[in-house]
C-alpha cells in the first residue's frame, strides 16, 4: 500500500527519526505566526508573512524529500499564495486564499505528526 511504502521510505531516509521534530517546530512556528496575523498593522504583517513564506519555502523543499509529500505540497502552495500577490489585487480575496493555505499546511503538518 502507498501509505505503508511511505512509512518504509521515511524510515530509510530518516533513520534517526529527527525530521518529525522539525515538523513539530514548524507547526508551532506557524501557529504562533498565523494566530493574530490579520490584526497586525501593515508593516508587522508583511514581516510576519515573509517569515511564513520562508518557512514554507524551506519546508516545501525538505518535507517532500523526506517523504512527507502532502506537507511539501501544502507548503509550496502557501509560498506561492504569499508571493504571487498581484499589485492592486483584491485584498480580502488574497487574504482569504492565504488563510486557507495556512490552514491547509497546518492540517498537513498535524496529519504528518499524528502518523508519527
Amino acid at each position, binding site marked *: 500500500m502507498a501509505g505503508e511504502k511511505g512509512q518504509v521510505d521515511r524510515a530509510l*531516509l*530518516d*533513520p534517526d527519526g*529527527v*525530521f518529525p521534530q*522539525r515538523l513539530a517546530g514548524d507547526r508551532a512556528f506557524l501557529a504562533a505566526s498565523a494566530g493574530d496575523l490579520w490584526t497586525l498593522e501593515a508593516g508587522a504583517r508583511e514581516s510576519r508573512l515573509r517569515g511564513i513564506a520562508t518557512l514554507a*519555502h*524551506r519546508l*516545501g*523543499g*525538505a*518535507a*517532500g*524529500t*523526506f517523504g512527507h*509529500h502532502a506537507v*511539501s505540497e501544502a507548503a*509550496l502552495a502557501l509560498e506561492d499564495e504569499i508571493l504571487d500577490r498581484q499589485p492592486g489585487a483584491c485584498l480580502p480575496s488574497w487574504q482569504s486564499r492565504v488563510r486557507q493555505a495556512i490552514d491547509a499546511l497546518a492540517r498537513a503538518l498535524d496529519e504528518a505528526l499524528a502518523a508519527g
Partner: protein
Amino acid sequence: MNVAGKVSNGAMPDESEEFSDVTQARILVVDDDRDLTGLVRRELVGQGFTVDAVELAEDALLAARDTAYALMIVDLGLPDRDGLELVRDLRGRLIEAPILVLTARNKVEDRVTGLSSGADDYLVKPFAVSELRARVAALLRRPSRMKGNHLSVANIVIDRNSLEAVVDGGSLPLPLKQFQLLELLVRRKNHVTPKRMIEETLYGFNDEVSTNSIEAQVYKLRQALRSAGAEATIETRRGIGYRLVELKPGPL
C-alpha cells in the same frame, strides 16, 4: 569548519599534481538545511564518497580553494549569498568540478539562469534520493571525472561500484575507510602516497582524526591483506607515506 586544516599550500611540487587524481571521491555539499545535508551526506557516504558539508557560500569558496573536489552540490538559497553568485564565483576562479544545483525554484527561467551561471545540472527540491544518486553518478561519469571502477594490483581487485575487494578470487570484506585507503593505494600503485593525501581522501572537515588514525588504518588493512593471501603489501616510507608493492615470489 576547519578549512585551514585542509589547506594544501606547501605541498611538494610532484605531490600537488597527484592531488587532482586522488581526491576524485570527495564531494562538497553547500546547504544550510541540516536535515537535507544529513540525508545527502548519508547517501553519498554510503556510496563510498568522502563528503564535506558547509552552510555558507564564504566557507564553500575557502573549501574549494583548498581541495580539488570531484563534485559540488550547491543549494541556491544560502544565508550569506545567492547560490548562483557562488557558482559564478567558483567558475570565475577556474574551479572546474561539476556543480549540481539544488533549489526549490522551479521556473524555467530559474533553471536556465542556473545552468547559464556555470552549473552542470539542476535538481529541484523536493527530490527523490534515487534521482540525486543518478545525477551524481552521471556527473562523475563525465570524461576525466572518474577513472575506472575496476582496479587491480597483483591478485587484488577492487570494484568501486559495489565497494567490494577481492583477493585471489575470494571476497575481502573491508570497512569503508579501509576500502577507500586500498582504492587510493591501488590507484597509486608504484607511487608513494603521502600521509596527508591519505588523510585528505579518507576524512572530511568534521571528522575526528587522531594523530595515529592513518597508521591504525594502514595496520589493519595490511593485516587484512596478509590474512587473505594478497600478493601485495603496504610498504612504509618513514616520514613520507605508504606504497602498495607486489610481493616477489620466494625461492622454491
